[in-house]
């Protein structure tokens, strides 16, 4: 069947297997008849080709919970359980996931494999900083337990390792105690990029912080944005809630995307035009997952799909580098209206994890021929500023750019060779990047 990531580009004819238990994963992985490359797949929310290969192993049925410990605040579950399902179970205990991506339909295994970050990276680090341990099925058929102490090399290569070390079967997560899941939000408009970055720095004490940047504004207004800050409210609900919204039933002509996003952005700007909105209370779902309310919004970019370009630049060069990037995007008129800017805290020790201390920006581009030279140009700016691109969003980075920006790639390959000497686990992405 034809598979693709969230960006609907690229596409690949693949055998999608849905093993019903860890034992059937073992059976398939140890079967030598499946000669071609294998890769695990969770919720399919990575944008590009990291979960595409000849044979794709879905974690859909690794969907059981094993234990919740409300004394230690930990939960153990199958790698196929989604963030949404975890939230449903833990919220009534007054617990919350310490790191959340922009969609709740990511699987726990996918979150480990990309070592995802949330709007609180500057304070709480990335997802795997809250992973106590996991079990990993290796190509040999052996299952090993990994933590920051036990099989440390395998742990550090698997966290952020995009499925290339094996299949993550079960994960134990450390959870966070929260007073409620009502979120107190404050939104501050910023006239341009400089002002936005100043505001981010000034508000570093805020638990969650993310800016929506208008990447089409030019000149004085370059990088005009709205900074959204948030905390869990002391008084509020402890109820899990699923908002129900519309669905995009089929791919729409891609020109709609800018009308659509423009309206969203203008709405939020409109509300803020006069003043900062102070302490508005919203449900966690609306704050953390604003786009989940529109099912299949990725179809808005049309049949050819889209590319999300997410970069990070280190603190030293972030201000000038980001200016150059946004300038380039706004001149091209190609980026989507809304882009997202966040500040990262320090990096961790995982070999292929994306975050480094600095600023990260993500911009969506409709998939069209003319966009590729522009992205190459952006790659050069990113490299010149010692930055890198996020593997979970990537579908087109070159091997050279990858190897120049992920300094630990050789160490990663050493560990991979030990865990998977015959290189059974490989994706379209890992082959493109020269990792397999």
């Amino acid at each position: 069947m034809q598979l693709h990531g969230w960006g609907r580009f690229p596409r690949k004819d693949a055998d999608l297997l849905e093993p019903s238990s860890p034992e059937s994963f073992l059976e398939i992985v140890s079967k030598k008849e499946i000669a071609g490359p294998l890769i695990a797949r969770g919720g399919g929310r990575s944008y590009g080709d990291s979960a595409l290969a000849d044979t794709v192993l879905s974690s859909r049925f690794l969907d059981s919970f094993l234990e919740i410990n409300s004394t230690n605040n930990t939960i153990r579950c199958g790698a196929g359980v989604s963030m949404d399902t975890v939230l449903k179970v833990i919220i009534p205990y007054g617990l919350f996931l310490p790191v959340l991506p922009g969609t709740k339909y990511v699987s726990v295994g996918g979150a480990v494999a990309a070592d995802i970050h949330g709007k609180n990276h500057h304070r709480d680090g990335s997802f795997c900083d809250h992973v106590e341990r996991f079990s990993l099925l290796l190509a040999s058929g052996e299952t090993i337990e990994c933590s920051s102490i036990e099989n440390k090399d395998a742990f550090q290569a698997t966290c952020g390792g995009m499925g290339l070390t094996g299949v993550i079967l079960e994960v134990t997560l450390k959870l966070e105690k929260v007073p409620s899941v009502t979120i107190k939000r404050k939104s501050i408009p910023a006239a341009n990029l400089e002002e936005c970055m100043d505001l981010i720095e000034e508000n570093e004490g805020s638990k969650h912080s993310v800016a929506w940047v208008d990447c089409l504004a030019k000149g004085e207004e370059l990088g005009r944005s709205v900074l959204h800050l948030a905390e869990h409210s002391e008084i509020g609900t402890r109820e899990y809630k699923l908002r129900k919204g519309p669905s995009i039933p089929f791919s729409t002509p891609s020109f709609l995307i800018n009308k659509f996003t423009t309206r969203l952005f203008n709405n939020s700007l409109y509300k803020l035009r006069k003043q900062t909105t102070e302490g508005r209370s919203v449900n966690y779902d609306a704050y953390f997952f604003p786009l989940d309310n529109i099912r299949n919004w990725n179809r808005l970019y049309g049949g050819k799909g889209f590319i999300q370009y997410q970069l990070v630049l280190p603190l030293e060069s972030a201000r000038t580098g980001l200016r150059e990037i946004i300038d380039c995007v706004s001149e091209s008129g190609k980026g989507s209206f809304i882009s997202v800017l966040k500040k990262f805290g320090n990096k961790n020790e995982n070999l292929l994890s994306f975050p480094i201390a600095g600023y990260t920006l993500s911009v969506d581009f409709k998939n069209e021929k003319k966009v590729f030279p522009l992205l190459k140009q952006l790659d050069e700016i990113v490299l010149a500023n010692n930055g890198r691109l996020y593997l979970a969003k990537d579908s087109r980075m070159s091997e050279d750019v990858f190897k120049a920006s992920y300094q630990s790639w050789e160490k990663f390959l050493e560990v991979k060779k030990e865990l998977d000497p015959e290189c059974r686990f490989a994706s379209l992405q890992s082959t493109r990047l020269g990792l397999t």
Partner: protein
Amino acid sequence: MNILLVGATSAIAKAISRLYSERNARLFLIARNEARLMELSDDLTVRGAQSVDFHVMDITDTESHINAVSNAKSALENIDLALICHGSLPDQEICESDFEQAAQEIKINGLSVISLCTEISKLLKEQNSGTLAVITSVAGDRGRHLISFTGLPNLWYPHTCRA
């Protein structure tokens, strides 16, 4: 709500029991594989079930049905809903040429269900409340052969359940 699920590790029973767990139901599970029952009961407990008990049973061993149902009754006290979800997907061709196989399928998909329905409905009548439902496959209604083994439940149960 107090729910008895027979064939509890089948995909459909698992999905149903997860939904009821979220509503803090008390569950009693019956299935053949103890390890899978243990896993499922952990999963349902984390998902919010008020209590989960289980009983290991081979469904074709109809003599043990009385005991299983009475265990369910002691664990749940009152049974609000009993769902029979077990079944196999018989191979029509093999059944047509191998009597042993056909008899086995009839036991799994036919006799065992009648036996369970009999025991459970006695109990529900005593309670004077409760619902008994048998989950069958639409495949049984589709393009039925003269003697269709997949269609057995669809043919038989309407009568037994009404009895």
